[in-house]
């Protein structure tokens, strides 16, 4: 009996994982359906745009400027080993727009937004506000989930674009004030080096990450168990799963975009 216990444990966790995947898949399908079918709630959508996009600008901007600045120092130091210090503007630019801008920016948004959505919807659930929505002839998926997921999918790429620019500016500041680069040449090297797809791929990543962030916030909020502890658990699970999914999907997207 005891000898089979580990096998039973593996079986149970496998079943639980498959069940979770199924629930999330159904949630995604329902969300997508509610995004494209009426009624639409524009007021909720614009409120979400402000909350997710506009109010995340400071944290994304600060993350980007310090990341760009540190990146410039690191690349300068590393490239000096083979006398290639001149590539700092190009590597900062490509590093920011392809990877660090989308990934770090989205991780910061995940911490800020996935937690806030999960806590808000979770609290609504435990205080019967979700039930109240249903009795008021309003579908909670359509009213709460669809506008937030759509808003995050559209605004996170914009945040990434702003973060890219600020990150490159951080590298520029360090490059020109600390590392002795000429201002005009730094900018010229950055602009001439970047290709459309370098920036475009980062924006596509931003859209996918935005979708993941809002989806995880809504999913865990809607499935929050009773009480303050339930809401706390939902919030934690939303941030952790959004962060892990961002990193995992970043690898897959990078493989798809650049492996050839």
């Amino acid at each position, binding site marked *: 009996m005891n000898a089979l216990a580990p096998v039973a444990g593996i079986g149970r966790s496998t079943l639980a994982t498959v069940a979770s995947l199924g629930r999330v898949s159904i949630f995604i399908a329902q969300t997508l359906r509610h995004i494209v079918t009426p009624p639409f709630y524009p007021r909720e959508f614009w409120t979400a745009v402000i909350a997710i996009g506009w109010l995340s600008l400071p944290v994304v901007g600060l993350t980007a400027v310090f990341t760009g600045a540190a990146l410039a120092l690191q690349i300068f130091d590393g490239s000096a080993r083979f006398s290639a210090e001149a590539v700092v503007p190009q590597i900062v630019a490509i590093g920011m727009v392809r990877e660090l801008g989308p990934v770090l920016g989205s991780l910061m948004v995940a911490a800020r937004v996935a937690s806030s959505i999960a806590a808000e919807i979770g609290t609504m659930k435990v205080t019967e506000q979700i*039930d109240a929505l249903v009795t008021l002839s309003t579908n909670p998926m359509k009213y709460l989930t669809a506008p937030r997921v759509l808003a995050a999918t559209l605004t996170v790429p914009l945040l990434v674009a702003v973060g890219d620019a600020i990150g490159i500016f951080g590298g520029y500041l360090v490059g020109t004030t600390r590392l002795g680069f000429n201002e005009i040449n730094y900018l010229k090297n950055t602009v001439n080096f970047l290709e459309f797809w370098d920036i475009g791929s980062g924006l596509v990543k931003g859209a996918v990450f935005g979708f993941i962030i809002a989806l995880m916030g809504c999913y865990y909020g809607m499935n929050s168990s009773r009480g303050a502890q339930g809401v706390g658990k939902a919030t934690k699970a939303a941030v952790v799963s959004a962060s892990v999914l961002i990193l995992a999907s970043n690898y897959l997207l990078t493989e798809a975009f650049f492996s050839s």
Partner: protein
Amino acid sequence: MIQLENVHKSFGNNAVLRGVNLEVPKGESMVIIGGSGTGKSVALKCVLGLVRPDKGVIRVDGEDITRADRDEFLSHFGMLFQGGALFDSMHVWENVAFRLLRGRLKKPREEAREIAIEKLRRVGLRASVADQFPAELSGGMQKRVGLARAIAAEPQIIFFDEPTTGLDPIMSGVINDLIREIVVEMGATAMTITHDMTSVRAIADKVAMLHDGVIQWTGPVSELDNTGDPYMQQFINGSAEGPIEAVR
């Protein structure tokens, strides 16, 4: 008319409803009483479609609720939740006018606001409350706002879930009187769940007692004190001795 026929509902191994049969005639006020955890809220949520029964049929005006157009069906209902369930991100008037600002009952914003203020007055609140947030109000005021929201779209059926829980006796009396007045005034069918006997006497035309997952007794409120039913006697008198097991 609301009819529940042999309604069963279990959560895991916990059989909450074990064959509930109940009829609430049109325009009557039915109060369901019973101890905590006996499934009163579950029964109410089954009627609203918030919880799906495992077995049995629920009909509203003769129509099986599982076959009804959900939006159309719910547009006839109003509900006052135990904790108010007000949307804390919205102003009070937007809570009251929620149904009038979207969906098939949508009205222009100004008109919806006027109706909301009128409903707030009806439940004894000043117009100045309209622009406050729910968190700025006392528990009694939140219940009144919840009541105003429940009646805003002039529903034919109104549910009240523990309407006086958490309120002081005077405010409980005020809410009970308001509920009674509004239900009579609107000619609505009302279903209330409570374990507050003062509420029962103030609100009910008929009373049903839910215990062990079934309706143990039902009858007019006038017979409440004369019933020989031992369950009812124990509940009304709040006695620890009797057929209802009191866990101490």
